[in-house]
């Protein structure tokens, strides 16, 4: 949540997540802290300062994602008037902001034009239409301090579950919530938990898939960097519900800050007795470890991920048996995505039925999306399932930054497809997106402007699949290479009608015969652009409209 209720003592929250860091949050945070500590404020910069005094306890906190990543570095000031958000503030502006935050009187805007020009509108639909559940504490808590997470309700549900609920009762709530896997597949979470829990007695594992690899997807990173304790709590509840006492968090190596914060969070949780032996005074034990990927996209596929954890080559295997039956070292293994597990504490707190009342039909609850591409407001949004694409992209995202019309929205990364602008009223849920030849995917939304030819988009994603194919099965290893060559011809306007036919036939073959989801979905960007933007290909091929 970004906007907080008015408070007497001002505080500043500076985003310390990767996006804002790369935009200069580090120097800004240091400057804010220096200014707050010293109280050495230029008199000329503080015309409004009346009652603030040096060292009057202005707290400057480093927090997780404040959503509008494209305007970073972001700083929120919470004061008696509520919250104000500032974007793109240089370190030189820190003193002015600290001075304003210290002045307990209302800000006489535009007293400090330099500062006012960085102010962002928190009443914009981008913020107003968000429904933060998974991200409810992201941007509020300091991800590096477990005390802060606990002060904001962290681990309350884990303690309650261990004291009051049986594993079966926990699974009942998750079943009732209608939660479905947020990694892209949309498999019912409660059913998966039951499948693991009901296996014959013996060892079980729980695994968090944090190998977020879709281009344009950064939802899970924000949870990992912004509120890691929520994930650990959800994972511990999941482990309790399925009877696991050991688990792994598989994080891609490209997320160094997430890995650092997760490791710190694990240490802190162990020290607080919230992981390890006899958790929170109960008889429940759980050891969690971080495993770092080695740069293979395919390791986000669950069987390849398990191989990787076991120290083997990251290649998928044929299913069944599913990991829920035979996973890590042959034991039943629960694998859930970051966002799925991070939704669990809220579901337990509010009840499965409460959660199921949000969203629509077969897609319940909220979903986090990362908006990027040809869009004014680049960043993270969490909205109820079933919100229309138009609301997300145009109302919240602000549409094309140059004022042009949106041409298409790419969802689901290299496994998904492109949805044309005339279908933007489609509700965002698992079934609706599948029906359009795309998929929910993990939640990346890349907006495509009018200037982009769709064969180029398809080629971009096919090149990704060629690079990331593990090489195990021939349709994906060799088929994607041939698809890429055909797409080259389309982009270069050399394709013939026969090439288009070959393209479609090979797409069908790769989709139907590849071993894992990566190969099966690799043709989707081609098929969906052929379906919705055939004219782009026809122009390319000279085959007529």
């Amino acid at each position: 949540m970004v906007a907080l209720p008015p408070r007497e003592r001002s505080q500043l929250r500076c985003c310390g997540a990767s996006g804002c860091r790369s935009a200069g949050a580090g120097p800004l945070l240091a400057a804010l802290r220096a200014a707050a500590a010293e109280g050495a404020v230029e008199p000329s910069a503080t015309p409004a300062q009346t009652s603030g005094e040096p060292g009057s306890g202005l707290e400057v906190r480093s927090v997780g994602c404040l959503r509008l990543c494209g305007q970073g570095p972001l700083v929120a000031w919470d004061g008696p008037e509520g919250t104000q958000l500032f974007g793109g503030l240089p370190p030189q502006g820190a003193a002015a902001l600290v001075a304003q935050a210290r002045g307990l009187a209302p800000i006489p805007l535009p007293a400090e034009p330099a500062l006012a020009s960085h102010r962002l509108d928190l009443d914009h639909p981008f913020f107003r239409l968000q429904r933060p559940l998974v991200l409810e504490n992201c941007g509020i808590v300091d991800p590096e301090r477990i005390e802060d997470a606990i002060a904001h309700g962290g681990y309350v549900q884990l303690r309650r579950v261990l004291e009051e609920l049986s594993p079966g009762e926990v699974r009942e709530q998750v079943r009732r919530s209608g939660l479905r896997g947020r990694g892209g597949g949309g498999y019912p979470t409660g059913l998966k938990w039951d499948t693991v829990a009901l296996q014959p007695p013996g060892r079980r594992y729980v695994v968090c898939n944090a190998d977020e690899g879709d281009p344009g997807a950064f939802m899970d990173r924000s949870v990992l960097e912004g509120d890691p304790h929520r994930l650990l709590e959800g994972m511990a509840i999941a482990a309790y519900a399925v009877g696991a006492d050991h688990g792994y968090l598989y994080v891609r190596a490209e997320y160094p800050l997430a890995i650092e914060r997760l490791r710190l969070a694990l240490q802190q949780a162990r020290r607080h007795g919230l992981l390890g032996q006899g958790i929170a005074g109960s008889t429940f034990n759980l050891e969690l470890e971080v495993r770092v990927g080695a740069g293979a996209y395919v390791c986000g596929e669950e069987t390849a991920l398990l191989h990787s954890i076991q120290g083997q080559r990251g290649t998928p295997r044929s299913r069944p048996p599913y990991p829920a039956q035979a996973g890590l070292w042959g034991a039943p293994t629960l694998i859930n995505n970051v966002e799925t597990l991070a939704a669990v504490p809220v579901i337990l707190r509010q009840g499965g039925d409460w959660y199921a009342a949000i969203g629509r039909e077969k897609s319940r609850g909220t979903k986090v999306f990362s908006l990027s591409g040809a869009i004014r407001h680049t960043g993270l949004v969490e909205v109820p399932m079933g919100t229309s694409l138009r609301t997300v992209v145009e109302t919240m995202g602000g549409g094309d930054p140059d004022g042009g019309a949106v041409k298409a929205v790419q969802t689901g990364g290299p496994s998904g497809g492109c949805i044309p602008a005339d279908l933007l009223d489609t509700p965002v849920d698992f079934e609706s997106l599948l029906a359009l030849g795309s998929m929910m995917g993990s939640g990346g939304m890349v907006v495509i402007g009018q200037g982009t030819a769709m064969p180029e988009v398809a080629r971009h994603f096919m090149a990704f699949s060629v690079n990331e194919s593990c090489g195990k099965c021939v349709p994906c290893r060799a088929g994607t290479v041939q698809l890429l060559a055909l797409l080259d011809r389309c982009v270069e306007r050399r394709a013939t009608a026969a090439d288009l036919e070959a393209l479609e036939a090979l797409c069908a073959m790769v989709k139907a015969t590849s071993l894992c989801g990566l190969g099966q979905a690799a043709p989707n960007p081609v098929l969906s652009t052929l379906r919705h933007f055939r004219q782009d290909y026809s122009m390319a091929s000279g085959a007529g409209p």
Partner: protein
Amino acid sequence: MSVITLRVDGLDVAVPAGSTLLQAIRAAGLAVPTLCHLDGLDAVAACRLCLVEVEGSQRLLPACASEATEGQVIHTATAQLQGYRRMAVELFFAEGNHVCAFCVANGDCELQDVAVAVGMDHSRFPYQYPQRSVDASHPRFSLDHNRCILCTRCVRVCDQIEGAHVWDVAERGSDCRIVAGLDQPWGEVDACTSCGKCIDVCPTGALFAKEDTTAEKHPHPERAQQLRQAREHQQWLR
């Protein structure tokens, strides 16, 4: 041992419970093409040639790695499957450098046999002509990467039957290649026992004995299963 019955291309067939679909297909007196599968080695379902249609399932299932279940109705040779198989074989030919005319395995090559079986007389996909090497560092054997189809039979036979684990796969995607030891010249890998099992199970001319020239390789892929039977059931089958 319990028995299950299923229907393969209209023929009812009974097989022991736990059998694979491939075993059921064979029990019915039918065949589907295979390349990566070899009796005696664990299935990897990588070549995708043995995919079959199962009524009631939207996905195609690899016969080598799928357990047969009671009452299943499967189709092994629909027009769609035949089309996919031919494309897969074309992809195999197009991604490597397969020149039968001067290959050691000419006339005794499973890739060649499969091409004939699926009716592939040319590839509709352009040949990639990859730059690949030959490893002739071993005193008795050679590995010609140009002819390798990455079936991983050598990897598996060396690991699962010989127990030496000389072979592995390196890189990914179209850069994948079989490596000896820690990506060393084969002749420098101490773990290699020179047993020749990898030569026997290789479906193409990629792995061969140095004394063999064009069309002189005559492998014995059945030895993997013979050895496994001998070890597990103390029986030597011929």
